[in-house]
């Protein structure tokens, strides 16, 4: 086996403990009860969604049997979850950083509708390909970082786009649209 160097001096990023949880917004609805309620909600929704499916079929197991059985189990588990954690002290679920997540979601959405184009009624987005969709997704999601630097992010988006096109389209040979409006594919 190769002998490693005796010592290496490096700068390492250190890990800091997470921030304390913010106080509970509602004294009753802690994380565990919310989890139980979510299960009940999901189960009820699945019951509603599968209401039109038949129970039985030629094989005995109709399309609706499994979904409805599972939905009922989920509802039951939701009640069990609430029951077993009833006496625990309610804990907060922490911060829900919707505003931080929004740029990422918008970036992903724009990627989806620009890469091969999309039609909303009369309004049509042309197929813009990876050359547009990739930097859009990268730049927008990069905006979500608190320590974001705009110049760095722009340069990075451009470099990453070039790398992605080179890697996925040319090196790996996937048939992805690069820039149909410019080079035809």
């Amino acid at each position, binding site marked *: 086996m190769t002998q490693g160097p005796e010592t290496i*001096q490096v700068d*390492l990023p250190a890990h800091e403990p997470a921030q304390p949880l913010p106080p509970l917004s509602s004294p009753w609805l802690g994380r565990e009860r919310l989890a139980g309620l979510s*299960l009940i909600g999901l189960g009820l929704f699945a019951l509603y969604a599968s209401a039109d499916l038949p129970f039985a079929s030629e094989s005995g197991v109709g399309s609706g049997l499994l979904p409805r059985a599972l939905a009922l189990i989920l509802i039951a588990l939701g009640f069990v979850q609430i029951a077993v954690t009833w006496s625990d002290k309610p804990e907060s679920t922490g911060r829900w950083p919707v505003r931080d997540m929004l740029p990422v979601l918008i970036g992903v959405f724009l990627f989806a509708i620009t890469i091969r184009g999309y039609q909303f009624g009369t309004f049509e987005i042309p197929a813009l390909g990876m050359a547009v969709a990739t930097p859009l997704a990268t730049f927008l999601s990069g905006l979500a970082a608190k320590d974001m630097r705009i110049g760095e992010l722009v340069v990075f988006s451009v470099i*990453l786009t070039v790398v992605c096109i080179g890697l996925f389209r040319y090196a790996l040979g*996937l048939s992805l649209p690069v820039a149909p409006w410019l080079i035809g594919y």
Partner: protein
Amino acid sequence: MMAVLEHLGLGLAVAFTLQNILFCFIGCLIGTLVGVLPGVGPVATISILLPVTLSLDPTGALIMLAGIYYGAQYGGSTTAILVNIPGEATAVVTAIDGHEMAKKGQAGLALGLAAIGSFIAGTVATVVIAALATPMTRLGLLFGPAEYFSLMIMGLVLAVVLAHGSLVKALAMIVAGVLLSCVGADMETGRERMTFDIYMLSDGIEFTVLAMGIFGFGEIFKNLADPEKRDVMRNRIGRLLPTLRELRENFGAILRGTGLGSVLGVLPGNGAILAPFASYALEKRLSDRPQDFGSGVPQAVSGPESANNAGAQTSFIPLLTLGIPPNAVMALMVGAMMIQGIVPGPQVIQNSPDLFWGLVASMWIGNLMLVVINLPLIGLWVKLLKVPYRLLFPAIVAFCCIGLFSISNDGAQVIMAGIMGLVGFALYKLQFEPAPLALGFVLGRLLEEKLRQALIISDGGMGTFVTSPLSAALLLIALGALAVAVLPSMRKSREEIFTEA
């Protein structure tokens, strides 16, 4: 025994072609990379690369994907030791004592022991796979639909018992996973289920979409919500290779970890995830000075690391011999095999022995490569740790988007994964584990299919699941495991294993 050696010989001949060595190396390298980088794991990576494997030959593709999986286990322990951030879920245990060792200036020793332990574990696990493959395959050939159904039920129950934290929540996640797999056209009648006439749901949810959404986008949302602060601190890595005495002191821990990992990994239901925790608990019990655990004991690194690696490798057994994926990565391997026209199951070993034994042998070669990739190149990986997250996650978003789009050249998949990312974030906030959800989803369709087949054969009699002795035994094991897990005394010791670690 002779047959095992013969098979390994065949495998080595396949794996030692220049092309396959190259694929193995690429896989290990990518695996180490994603293991080291926080916020991107093997599930998201393999999902992105799945469309790419279409143009490769089947053996090479599987060798590369397998390399990513066990390479990530190696890389994950590197970050666990150096910065106390477990790059992979299974490296959580390593972070405890490994990082304490790093603080004492023994980072190199911890890394070295982890690598040597993993290599020994990988070697033993390769032999275990080779030895178990033929008998397990024979067993698999005896399985009819009823037995398969019971086996999957057992796997799902074991996944609940072996999961972290609350049993109720783990069970709920499995059920929700199976429920999600019902969305889309019914396989038997073609009737659309729970789609609300939304066209992107009509073919059901692709597993890669679920995986990239929850494990790719979901991780990013999670890190944006609770950022891990990483400030620069000066530290010494120290010498990498242990002395003979240190090696002797850790040898027992390595072997025990390997044994635990090999056994737990074989269980259908992702036993591998429990292996490092079990090894930590065992070493602590056997130690003369259990009070030192948590303050940098080498055995608390070498044992769990070996267990982790052995488990990662033997979890290929249920997939390769029975066709039942025990975790999300193995489910993606099913996808990779299906793309190549290979149906996973007991017939693989007979129809394509080259692929089967080549893949097994490549794991040993890969483990050897990983020692070389990890130890001398540790400086390079440390530099990678300094890549700021503000640039890392936009890149992950871009890669995921491209990977998602290339599944079926459809932007709708990208949007669906974005929604799945929100689901994943909600799961994290409510402290639901996503792993059982993924497993339930993966096995869901197969479960319904086998249930129907079994009931057609038995003319609708539910008795078929208990009259077949094999099926009855599997269901009994599942029932027993569940009963034991809810017993108050067992619940206490189960919690101890997870909280001690």
